[in-house]
């Protein structure tokens, strides 16, 4: 079965990935809605910035995060005064994962929001619903499959995050050493292939589990008994 060390790595990876998705989901929903439903000056720029982590080398993202949120960084210094530290902490790993997975999350949610007929939302308005209520009762529930897909993609991407994480928060066992970092570390040690393999199998199992949960969430929502 799992060793205490392996269990620790898996739990840390789950913690980082869950925190990453939980933190980026509200912002992701908002940005997806902005891009899907609003026209404003600078929309193209926002779209480009959101997609940046997808096209930049992860190491660059990690380095930029280090510059901004490191101990000496502009934002890092301010946040440290209110007790939030990212540098060399698991929270930093979660931040790196959130930034790297954000484009995938936004993309999935945006596509499903764009697929919602805007005339349904207009009908909601004429029935007396303010814009936020239309969003909460119509847009969001109708975009549910995209929400689940976006969260799953974000979760999977977070579980697999390597380059930005190791650049930003290094590989500290018990603090920032997630599955990919641990696997990489074992491959660098002669004779530790078994450990690397065992962790890789765990990785596959976790990803399959996430896939199954998301599938179940989408199906459950489509069942005819559920009313919002």
């Amino acid at each position, binding site marked *: 079965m799992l060793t205490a060390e392996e269990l620790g790595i898996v739990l840390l990876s789950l913690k980082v990935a869950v925190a990453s998705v939980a933190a980026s989901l509200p912002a992701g929903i908002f940005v997806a809605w902005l891009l899907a439903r609003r026209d404003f000056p600078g929309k193209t720029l926002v779209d480009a910035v959101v997609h940046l982590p997808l096209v930049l080398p992860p190491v660059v993202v990690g380095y930029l995060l280090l510059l901004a949120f490191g101990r000496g960084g502009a934002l890092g210094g301010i946040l440290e005064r209110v007790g939030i530290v990212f540098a060399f902490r698991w929270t930093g790993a979660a931040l790196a994962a959130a930034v790297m997975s954000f484009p995938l999350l936004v993309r999935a949610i945006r596509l499903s929001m764009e697929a919602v*007929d805007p*005339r*349904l939302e*207009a*009908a*909601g*308005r*004429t*029935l*007396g*619903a*303010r814009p936020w*209520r239309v969003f909460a*009762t*119509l847009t969001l*529930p*109708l975009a*549910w499959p995209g929400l689940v897909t976006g969260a799953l993609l974000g979760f999977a991407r977070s579980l697999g995050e390597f380059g930005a994480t190791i650049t930003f928060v290094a590989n500290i066992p018990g603090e920032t050493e997630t599955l990919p970092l641990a696997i990489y570390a074992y491959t660098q040690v002669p004779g530790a292939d078994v450990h690397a393999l065992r962790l890789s199998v765990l990785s596959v199992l976790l990803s399959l589990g996430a896939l199954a949960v998301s599938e179940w969430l989408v199906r459950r929502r489509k069942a*005819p008994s559920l*009313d*919002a």
Partner: protein
Amino acid sequence: MLEVDIVVRRGAFRLEAAFSSDAPIVALFGRSGSGKSTVVEAIAGLVRPESGRIVVQGRTLFDAARAIDLTPEARRVGCVFQDALLFPHLSVRANLAYGERLTPAAERFVDRDRVISLLGLASLLERRPATLSGGEKQRVALGRTLLASPRILLLDEPLAALDAPRKAEILRYIELLRDELRLPMVYVSHAIEEVTRLADRLVLVSDGRTLAEGDVAEVLSRADLKPYTGRFEAGAVIDARVARHDERYGLTVLAFEGGELVVANVDALPGEPVRARIRSRDVALALERPRAASFQNVLEATVESVGGEFGAIVDVGLRVGATPFSARITRESAERLAIVPGTKLFALVKAIAIDRRSVGYA
């Protein structure tokens, strides 16, 4: 009372609409793409006019000059669209409750149980929109809109997606609502049969402009509008009452100003007001009362106008008593019978030419 005087610009499309009505149902009539739906969207607050004003029942919804532009949710304007636009993730019951829940109790004037029974929705409540037929969807959409207690009801081609039997069914329901709830309605359509059957007042829309407004019969009989209305089967609209039924032959006699019309059985009680539409091409003319002919309706008429100087066909404007009729005959017939304004003659109409579906409650 509805007053609309707006200019809407949408890309290259420009709409200028000006009309007012205090009729129970005003029809916006015109071809697809003429701008009818844009008028509806402007009244509902879904598009913002460039200039002008919109007043419903004394309440200003939009006035560019006074910087008034109520949000759609504040307007209390009910809309029913061609594709019912039911919320697919909600049951019929939840769809119906959507607007009702958002209506302050003091503003509610429509009773839920009454609407459910009026529209026959009781058996559909637990169903999902995806499992409903087109007609059922449209009934739910009507109910959902009514339960938000709107001050005016906008119906944008509500029958366009339905087959003929469902059309007739929904028409009956709309007539019921008109009579039961006394809610002013704007009925948008490109189908003349629906307009003549339901509406009292007609606004003709063409190429982004309101060309004419007036009583339905008056606008449809105006010769200068024939290019717009004529395309849609010219004809006369007759306001009548059910005089009596002839059970033996399954006929109904309608009395109107100027005479009586025999039609195939109409499902209405004696004394009830109805409206019948008679297409010009179904009216024949004779200088003498024909004997031994199958025509059920032989009406004494006076020629008012003989339209069209060219072509094989002429439209003859007639008056039977006070009621305008029109007949479409060949130029050859018109000249052979020497039909000119003032000629006294007989208008002949077969009972079965008056389509049962064109007779509706007035």
